[in-house]
């Protein structure tokens, strides 16, 4: 079977293959060029952008945990203007879709970024609503249904681009949030962002990270991510970009069976710089073994009566 169909349509954003890379784990692609052919990647979600350049967090930024890591990078990035000037032209050399991951302190900041990017050469905007909401006492935008509604609606009005909204897993009822996101015009939902975690250096008697907690990612969170992707799959009909701990093709297939149309590799890129290629090959192997011709058939394709 050398005529596998790997194309997936994320509601207007068409990827040559379902393997993408997660924001914040792949920079703007440059660092991986020595290791793999960037043309092989379905889409690159770039490092989280803000309106102005940001220096990121002070102090230790990482804790390794059992099969996971907690990061506290804090959105260090050169700002959206630098991205437009220097990174879009670089990425456009390759046959891969560009997803601009946007982050703000306020709804206005998100809107301003969406407006700016609306006339730029990106294929999609990924609205990261896991950011702390200054107005709401620092709680993440994505944890409050009302705030989610406000920010998604506002950004939707500010851009005609394909719009992905990226959900935080740190909520009681992700279905409720997903439905609001769908109702307010998002084209696609991506999840999961990192799970809040913390670690303490017991000999220094200090939280290892200056801000105490950070974002847990990697294989440790995969079971949580699979569950949440499946929940969202049951709640909405827009496509899903699934992520959280994907290391192998089998992991990727698990996400798609749970309900994802495409997947993203995050922490996996750190452990294995050619993870994208290996995961893609693993998906192909699975499809051949199972005699499934088209990867888009996998979405939610479970042998169960719901």
């Amino acid at each position, binding site marked *: 079977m050398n005529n596998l169909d790997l194309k997936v349509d994320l509601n207007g954003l068409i990827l040559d293959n379902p393997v993408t890379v997660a924001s914040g784990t792949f920079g703007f692609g440059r660092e991986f060029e020595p290791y793999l052919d960037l043309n092989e990647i379905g889409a690159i979600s770039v490092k989280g952008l803000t309106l102005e350049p940001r220096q990121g967090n002070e*102090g230790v*930024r*990482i804790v390794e945990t059992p099969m996971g890591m907690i990061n506290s990078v804090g959105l*260090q990035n050169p700002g959206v203007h630098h991205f437009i000037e220097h990174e879009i032209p670089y990425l456009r050399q390759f046959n891969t879709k560009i997803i601009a991951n946007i982050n703000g302190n306020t709804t206005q900041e998100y809107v301003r970024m969406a407006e700016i990017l609306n006339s730029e050469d990106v294929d999609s905007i990924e609205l990261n609503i896991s950011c702390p909401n200054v107005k709401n006492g620092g709680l993440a935008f994505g944890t409050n249904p009302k705030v989610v509604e406000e920010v998604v609606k506002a950004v939707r009005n500010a851009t005609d681009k394909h719009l992905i909204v990226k959900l935080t897993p740190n909520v009681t009822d992700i279905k409720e949030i997903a439905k609001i996101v769908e109702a307010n015009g998002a084209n696609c939902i991506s999840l999961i962002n990192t799970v809040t975690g913390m670690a303490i250096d017991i000999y220094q008697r200090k939280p290892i990270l200056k801000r105490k907690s950070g974002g847990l990612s990697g294989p440790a969170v995969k079971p949580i991510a699979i569950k949440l992707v499946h929940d969202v799959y049951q709640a909405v009909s827009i496509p899903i970009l699934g992520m959280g701990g994907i290391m192998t093709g089998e992991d990727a297939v698990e996400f798609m069976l749970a309900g994802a149309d495409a997947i993203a590799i995050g922490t996996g890129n750190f452990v294995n*710089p050619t993870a994208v290629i290996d995961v893609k090959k693993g998906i192909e192997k699975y499809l051949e073994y199972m005699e499934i011709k088209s990867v888009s058939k996998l979405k939610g394709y479970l042998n169960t009566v719901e």
Partner: protein
Amino acid sequence: MAFNGTVKILNTEQHDHENFSLSVAIPETVKPGQFFNFLATDSGMPLLRRPISVSGIEDNVITFTIKVVGKGTQYLANLKSGDEVALTGPLGNGFDLTTTKKRTLLIGGGIGVAPIKGLGEALRSMDIIVDSVIGFRENPILEAAFLKFSTQLTVVSEKNDTYKKGYVTQYLEQILDENEYDEIYACGPKVMLRAVTDMLNSRGKRAQLLMEEKMACGIGACLVCTCKLKDGEFGSKMVRMCKEGPMFYSDEVIFDE
């Protein structure tokens, strides 16, 4: 370019109960001060790769000298010649060897002597005069190699009375007074690098410091391994230890805490 794949271990050597070396053949040009990122597991744990500096470069044969401090380094210590290991590299900027013409001072502390040894060997082969001062808590490692390339060698130990007593920094002033060095290189614990920096700052001199920070990707993508430098658009500047470093000039680094 950087190699990324699996190689056979050519050789292993146990230095003492916690330090060992292993060598592999890598088809890339490697500089002293660069490092490789090792997959240090066959079970998946520990998840992240382990960065290890090059401690010797002979043609394509690269040697690493490693101290066992946890599960990852223990895994590497258990490998035998003939076993395979996955690694990526060379990574990082490495030392700048072009700035020294005549006489160089090398400063090493603990396992930090490993990359300094590779550097010393390279400088010696360039006919630079190399003086070394290396310090240890107890017994030295790689002493024979340092004896071989060093014109003056000072070995310091906190606990072993066969050697000079105390810390390297206690002997630094005198060494710096006695000779003229056109470059200074240092690698060791943060406290040592900071003390060296303070001393050099006060003399209006600087060193090439090989620094360390926890890493995830090792290739510049994740931004978890920062070093804070002076100046820059925020008054300071966060750069990547693994990409812009791990070598930084002592007069540009901001030591936190």
